[in-house]
């Protein structure tokens, strides 16, 4: 045991840095989000309004962006699950000597610069990109498919970006499923598919949930990939916030949107922890 006095001295520097450069700046956005924006002049002094928040739910354009963001989060999460599970299963249960090389091939794109990865997808998905050129050369299509600046492009790009996170979570979850239970089910006459659906899948459910929450929250918060693959017009919440602050200079509206996005991210995490606790209670 070290004395509480020493413990405080060890924690205080970091706590102060986080208070000064994280907590206070975020809290200082709160008054801004209730301020009134005057085009050209900035914030109206002493005028408080709820309009920045009510606009988020009443304005058709904002609503569309929010639904698009949430839909994107859902699609990307599902795509990561469907693509990630077989790979995670191979890593967890496949040949031992494949394991480390496969994990490294999953980690490598994850460690790679996000801008570089999004740039790679632009080269692939653009009108004159690799995918369209290949399809035209093969005679499968006559005019290029629209793969960028729309939902398709964002889905492909974001799935690629967040798939490694899902795979790593699922590998841990599948490795936690006791093989004895699977073997027991097989011994008792279950087919391989039945063993998978009735034993492996339910027992890896906590990992599936954790990975899904992580991917969903990362997707709805993403700025770089949606901006690069969606362009300046096809917006999600993060790129909308970016524009409110950098282009329109409407900081009150941008602040309100920031809190809405934060609320959504934290709400999803809170819901999932409630769900996990309930599951743990049933077991």
């Amino acid at each position, binding site marked *: 045991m070290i004395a509480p006095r020493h413990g405080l001295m*060890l924690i205080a520097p970091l706590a102060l*840095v986080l208070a000064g450069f*994280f907590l206070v700046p975020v809290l200082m956005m709160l008054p801004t989000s209730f301020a009134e924006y005057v085009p050209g002049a900035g914030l109206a002094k002493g005028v408080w309004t709820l309009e920045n928040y009510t606009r988020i739910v009443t304005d058709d354009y904002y609503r569309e962006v929010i639904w698009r963001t949430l839909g994107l989060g859902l699609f990307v999460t599902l795509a990561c699950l469907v693509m990630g599970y077989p790979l995670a299963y191979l890593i967890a249960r*496949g040949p031992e000597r494949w394991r480390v090389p496969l994990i490294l091939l999953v980690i490598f794109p994850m*460690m790679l610069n996000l801008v570089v990865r999004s740039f790679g997808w632009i080269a692939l998905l653009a009108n004159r990109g690799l995918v369209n050129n290949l399809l035209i050369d093969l005679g499968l299509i006559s005019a290029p498919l629209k793969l960028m600046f729309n939902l398709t492009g964002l889905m492909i790009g974001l799935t690629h970006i967040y798939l490694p996170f899902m795979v790593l979570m699922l590998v841990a979850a599948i490795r936690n499923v006791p093989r004895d239970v699977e073997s027991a089910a097989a011994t008792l006459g279950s087919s391989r598919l039945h063993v998978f659906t009735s034993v492996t899948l339910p027992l890896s459910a906590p990992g599936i949930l954790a990975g899904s929450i992580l991917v969903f929250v990362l997707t709805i918060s993403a700025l*770089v990939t949606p901006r690069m693959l969606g362009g300046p017009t096809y917006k999600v919440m993060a790129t909308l916030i970016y524009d409110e602050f950098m282009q329109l200079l409407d900081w009150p509206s941008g602040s309100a949107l920031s809190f809405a*996005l934060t609320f959504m991210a934290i709400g999803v995490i809170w819901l999932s922890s409630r769900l996990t606790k309930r599951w743990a209670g049933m077991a």
Partner: protein
Amino acid sequence: MTSATDSDDRPGLAVTTTALAVIVFLQVPVIVVMLAAFSTTSYLTIPPQGLTLAWFGKVLSDPSYLSAIRMSLILACGSTVISLVLGVAAAYALFRKSVPGSEAITSFLMAPLILPAVVIGVALLQYFSLTGLRGSLIGLLMAHVVITVPYIVRSGLASLSGLDLAVEEAARVLGATGFEAFRLVTLPLIRPGLVAGALFAFITSLDNVPVTIFLIGANQTTLPVLIFSSVEMGIDPSVAAVSTLLIVATGIVLLIAERRAGFHRFV
């Protein structure tokens, strides 16, 4: 049905094929970028037409790329070192349970991971505009500490949790001061985990756009922000060349980390 042998629950052909296809999917954009960097055309073509190293020469002699690379390295090294010092100290105090409310403090220290990065970015933009820190190196460094320090705290706590306190106590009994005992006994034991955490912190800083882009002043553009904005202007193969340099650097760092510390265990 006889008892399940080892080969029975091995992934079948369908699973293996799908999984390998997903692995290929993960590498495709990386390969595409690397191929595009060697093209002789001034626009992006794949497969490359002709073969040239000219774009690498252009990048390495372009002052704006060089200054962006320098800025990125300064920020990544600086914030990793500061985060290591602050984060390890905090993790150690939390591990020794020497402060009340350690669970709440841990959540607070990890909070920057939960908040969307763009929200931290705009919050700091307003804060720095009000306090005059916008465009200052110290402000940028502190912003990067905020987004990197959770990785250090997390890896610090994880490495410490497997530690036997008795070893450190023994050093104390033998006359070492508290700091000596930590530096000579505890620190070497948690080093592999900290190296992995520091690597994550370094890459997080090097990768960051959504916080940095709101805060940089003139001549403070980092490499990812420069690539990000030059893509909006239109693409030429020099973007692919500088990306290829980053890909190769990341690959080398990952391989060294794997050889030296068994990096994949810490992910």
